[in-house]
């Protein structure tokens, strides 16, 4: 197909022809085109369908404010719904499809909605679909859901990469039109660190769309020269294809750079887009203005466009919606479009100007004091009907109709911190208000200065002012300086189906109904009619709706107010906000020192927070994880096992007040702990609930090593720093985390000492007498490597924890395995670790769930009343010390073989099973190879006095009821003889 509506000139590269497809038809275009400009050039006006009535939609604008020409771009797993054709940069091989239509764009079955539009008035769905009640979810809602929505996702994983980055500058300039370019030049020449960002792929803003001159140059050439000079300044960074999406606190701006969207395929490793956080000392908004339409009957047909967009397509993109065009305007700018189109050879059928004193033109007809009252054309504009000043009507034969209702400054970013814009009655538009985000200034059309000269001047002056520049400023080129005064004209009287929000199909009559029903606040109007809630967020529609509501309510526009401008300025792919943090990179992965060895051994790994830990080590022939875990437990209890417990938090506590400090941190006493000894410690939150538990070993009078649970390592460190810095600032105590510095392994089982004897250097006595239960100390291993040894036990066996610098952890594990062969040493994972601690009745994460107290855990007496410790006072509250308080117990099935379910609830042996009779719950459960039975730990009301009682364990969720016996939580070696052996 040829480019029948391609005009002369423009900023496109005719030397290169690009091929693209729209709805499976092939077309050609040139570099510099957008998808919209190329479709227009190829004679395609119909590009989409509206949301509710499925009305045919063409292009309305030439920028990111586009509500209508939105398509599904690309195919397969790169399909990108709701993409604006107006900002989609053309590349060879581009493929796009129209959306929200079936079976085709031209014949859309749901266009039937348009015929029933009177039944589908604003908010009709709130008043019906209520009977019969069940039908809403079975029938009505599925119907509505299917019909709603615009484009579709591929349902496949997005294959592209996204990046995030951080940039800093003295001055961020948002928008590279005349004011932005001059501001950048002023600041750049003065040596400031400047970032100039613009959403377009060609910098220059409106200058690229205009035919007037700046000095001796055409506007576009002048812009090009400015860009060239700015590019040469090392302190100025130009960021084209970059939308500043939001103004966040303290001068931080979000910006999205589209680094790959204009490419057919991304080079390997390159991102599709980058989310920049720009840290600016000052920022200058030079975002320009957006033209606004006028509402009239059937003003939504493809071919009806903003006049400035028609001009942009003609001047910049050398394309037109049709060969015959009309203009409908209430201001002089509309005439500029007519003149430019005329100069490009487009036939101007008429300029319809509502003003009786419209300027006269001799090259084409100007209908002064006239209005467009209706249009025709099923899939695109064919005729426009004009009501002339004398009341007669006339039909204009045209395929394009440019509408100009004046301009709205793009104030969005000025309102991102809840500031409100101010009404300017000369412009009949909102301009930036007084309460801008701190550090933000505004120049050019965004500030309401509409002429080119004023924009250039304010760009220079604002930049100079915010940077406090002294001395001479860059000269300004001569530029048009036409005074701008807009007489507001929002809609043609007497119309009903005149569109305000073209995407969401909100018409003048919907706003009237909203008013009639009392939805008069702008927020109610928006929410009731959906005005401004479409993908363009009402950039071309809100103002019209607001003006109409003000008129209906008999209030002024500023008294009626605006809805709130929210980021992002234009929609941003969710993938861009996520950056690289997805898939395996979602969170960092922490590997234990024995990880590579465990992998070689075929370990199965499990995520524990960010750690990957070996869960069990299957042997050939083992088909079920239980086989592996049972073996690991049995072998450890029978001989010796080794487990990597590096993940436990380790905090080094030093200082002359270290012991006193721990006395405050732990509810039990630490002041009298001897050097070379370790003690179990229970840490409470200030509210008296258990925060964490662990051990503290005293390596010297003024030196402790504290361990925390894996899960709470970070939280406990923060808490300790809080206590140190904020509560007891004069304590001489220093803290540092050493979790990662040491590879720490539990060596457990009756033969653990024998195994360690082969590792620990001979000068260290590790006999029961020389190194008794709870001893700790610095030692050396394997011929002199510094190490730490703790005689502590989580498994209940004779056990040690040995630590060496992490880089030697891999080698130490291999050594333990080889030296342990004679004892049949077994590596064990977190499952066996868990089984053994349940057998021993040690509380862990499932029991320390943030609601349990020391009393619940059976450690109530540990809370010392003789000293001040965090949480001790509030732990005494009555509600935490009731007679029937939950106590930790062991749970065993009455019938061997029955399973215990963690999360099951405990009910009396008989009686009802319901919440009112709930007496406790099971926190942890496992199969105990040592007892050859399932066992569990749990909390039971007055549990400590109910040992031996038979109860029911119920789990209706998993359809289970088991008869259980309440027993002591210490299933294995309750007297603790083994660990002291």
């Amino acid at each position, binding site marked *: 197909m040829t480019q029948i509506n391609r005009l002369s000139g423009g900023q496109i590269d005719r030397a290169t022809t690009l091929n693209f497809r729209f709805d499976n038809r092939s077309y050609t275009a040139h570099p510099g085109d957008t998808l919209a400009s190329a479709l227009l050039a190829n004679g395609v006006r119909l590009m989409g369908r509206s949301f509710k009535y499925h009305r045919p939609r063409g292009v309305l604008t030439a920028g990111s404010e586009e509500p209508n020409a939105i398509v599904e771009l690309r195919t397969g797993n790169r399909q990108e719904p709701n993409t604006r054709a107006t900002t989609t940069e053309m590349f060879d091989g581009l493929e796009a499809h129209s959306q929200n239509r079936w079976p085709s764009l031209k014949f859309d079955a749901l266009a039937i909605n348009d015929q029933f539009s009177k039944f589908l008035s604003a908010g009709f769905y709130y008043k019906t679909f209520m009977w019969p009640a069940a039908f809403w979810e079975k029938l009505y809602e599925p119907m509505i859901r299917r019909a709603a929505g615009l484009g579709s996702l591929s349902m496949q994983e997005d294959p592209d990469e996204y990046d995030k980055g*951080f940039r800093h500058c003295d001055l961020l300039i948002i928008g590279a039109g005349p004011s932005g370019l001059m501001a950048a030049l002023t600041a750049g020449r003065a040596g400031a660190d400047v970032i100039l960002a613009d959403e377009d792929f060609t910098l220059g803003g409106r200058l690229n769309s205009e035919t007037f001159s700046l000095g001796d140059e055409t506007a576009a050439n002048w812009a090009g020269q400015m860009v060239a000079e700015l590019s040469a300044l090392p302190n100025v960074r130009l960021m084209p294809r970059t939308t500043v999406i939001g103004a966040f606190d303290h001068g931080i701006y979000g910006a999205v750079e589209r680094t790959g969207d204009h490419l057919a395929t991304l080079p390997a490793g390159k991102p599709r887009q980058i989310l920049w956080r720009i840290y600016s000392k000052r920022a200058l908004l030079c975002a320009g203005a957006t033209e606004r339409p006028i509402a009239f009957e059937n003003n939504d047909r493809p071919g009806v466009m903003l006049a400035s967009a028609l001009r942009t397509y003609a001047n910049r993109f050398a394309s037109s919606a049709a060969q015959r065009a009309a203009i409908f305007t209430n201001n002089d700018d509309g005439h500029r479009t007519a003149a430019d189109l005329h100069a490009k050879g487009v036939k101007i059928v008429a300029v319809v100007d509502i003003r009786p004193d419209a300027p006269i033109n001799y090259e084409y007809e100007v209908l002064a004091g006239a209005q467009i009252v209706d249009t025709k054309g099923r899939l695109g504009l064919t005729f426009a009907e004009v009501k002339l000043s004398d009341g007669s009507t006339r039909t204009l034969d045209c395929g394009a109709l440019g509408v100009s209702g004046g301009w709205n400054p793009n104030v969005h970013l000025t309102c991102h911190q809840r500031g409100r814009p101010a009404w300017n009655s000369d412009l009949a538009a909102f301009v930036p208000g007084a309460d801008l985000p701190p550090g933000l200034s505004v120049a050019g059309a965004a500030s309401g200065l509409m002429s080119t000269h004023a924009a250039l001047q304010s760009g220079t002056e604002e930049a100079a002012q915010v940077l406090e520049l002294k001395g001479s400023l860059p000269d300004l080129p001569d530029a048009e300086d036409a005074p701008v005064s807009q007489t507001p004209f929002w809609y043609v009287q007497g119309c009903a189906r005149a569109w305000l929000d073209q995407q969401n199909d909100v018409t003048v009559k919907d706003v009237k109904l909203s008013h009639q029903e009392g939805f008069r606040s702008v927020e109610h109007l928006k929410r009731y009619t959906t005005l401004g809630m479409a993908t363009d967020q009402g950039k071309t529609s809100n103002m019209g709706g607001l003006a109409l509501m003000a008129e209906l309510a008999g209030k002024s526009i500023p008294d009626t107010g605006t809805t709130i401008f929210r980021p992002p300025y234009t929609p941003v792919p969710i993938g861009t906000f996520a950056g*690289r943090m997805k898939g395996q*990179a979602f969170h*960092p992965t922490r590997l234990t020192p024995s990880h590579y060895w465990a992998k070689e051994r075929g370990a199965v790994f499990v995520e524990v927070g960010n750690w990957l830990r070996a869960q069990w080590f299957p042997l050939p022939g083992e088909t079920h994880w239980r086989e592996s875990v049972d073996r690991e437990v049995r072998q450890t209890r029978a001989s010796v096992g080794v487990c990597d417990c590096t993940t436990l938090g380790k905090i080094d506590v030093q200082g*002359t007040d270290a012991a006193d400090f721990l006395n405050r941190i732990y509810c039990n006493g630490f002041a009298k702990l001897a050097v070379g000894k370790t003690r179990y410690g229970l840490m409470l939150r200030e509210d008296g609930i258990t925060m964490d538990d662990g051990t503290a070993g005293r390596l010297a009078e003024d030196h402790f090593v504290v361990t925390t649970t894996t899960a709470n390592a970070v939280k406990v460190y923060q808490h300790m720093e809080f206590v140190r810095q904020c509560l007891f600032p004069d304590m*001489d105590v220093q803290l540092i985390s050493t979790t*990662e*510095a040491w590879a720490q392994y539990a060596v457990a089982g009756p033969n653990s000492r024998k195994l360690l004897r082969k590792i620990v250097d001979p000068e260290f006595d590790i006999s029961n007498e020389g190194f008794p239960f709870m001893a700790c100390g610095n030692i050396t291993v394997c011929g002199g490597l510094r190490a730490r040894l703790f005689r502590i036990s989580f498994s209940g066996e004779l056990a040690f924890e040995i630590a060496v610098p992490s*880089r030697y952890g891999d080698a130490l594990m291999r050594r333990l395995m080889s030296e342990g062969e004679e004892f049949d040493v077994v590596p064990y994972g977190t499952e066996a670790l868990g089984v053994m601690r349940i057998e021993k009745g040690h509380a862990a994460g499932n029991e320390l769930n943030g609601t349990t107290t020391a009393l619940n855990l059976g450690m109530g007496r540990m809370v010392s009343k003789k000293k001040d410790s965090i949480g001790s006072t509030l732990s005494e509250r009555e509600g935490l010390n009731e007679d029937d308080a939950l106590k930790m117990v062991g749970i065993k099935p009455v019938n061997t073989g029955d399973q215990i379910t963690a999360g099951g609830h405990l009910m009396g042996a008989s009686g009802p099973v319901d919440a009112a009779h709930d007496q406790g719950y099971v926190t942890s459960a496992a199969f105990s190879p040592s007892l050859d039975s399932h066992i569990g730990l749990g909390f039971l009301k007055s549990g400590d006095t109910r040992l031996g009682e038979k109860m029911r364990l119920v789990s209706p969720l998993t359809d289970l009821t088991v008869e259980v016996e309440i027993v002591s939580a210490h299933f294995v070696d309750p007297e603790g003889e083994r660990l002291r052996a």
Partner: protein
Amino acid sequence: MHDLFAITALGGSSPQTDRVGNVTCTESPGVALASVAARSGQEPKARTALGALIGADAPSVGRFAGNPVMAFWTGPDQWMVAAPFDTHEELAHLANTQLGDTASVCEQTDAWVRFDLDGDDVLAVMELLCVLDCRKMQAGEAARTAIHHLGCFVICRSSGAFSLYGPRSSAGSLHHAIVAAMKSAL
């Protein structure tokens, strides 16, 4: 002498090097580290003793100093001392001896993995990694910040040369982030 073999944080027997464009990322296991935190009331003495250890004034906020034993500031009256591993594996012991009871010293050698980033375009990589204004960082500056959710020290050795210290257990994740940023930016 003990006979345990060390592996690098990335799990190799020798350090890993990656190059994209003109930027090189080198895993640098050859550094010993120890933290030094002045005891309450001993701050001036601790600074003097630290100065003696590194042969320079104890670095002030956000700075590093000293060679071959160097120190960088990590917090109020707190520093990290670094030295070549081959000659100073027992750095913590040395520091402890020299600082005596003026400061608390803790071995940190294997708490960290170090990556050295060198090359003309290194700033383009750094701006994808961390929020610090690395363009403004001068030789001799040190800062702690977050890189891909990991708390890291960033040391500016010279304008085109940075060292990153990240948590050793996450060396692989940090390395992945650095190399991805290199491929993206270069």
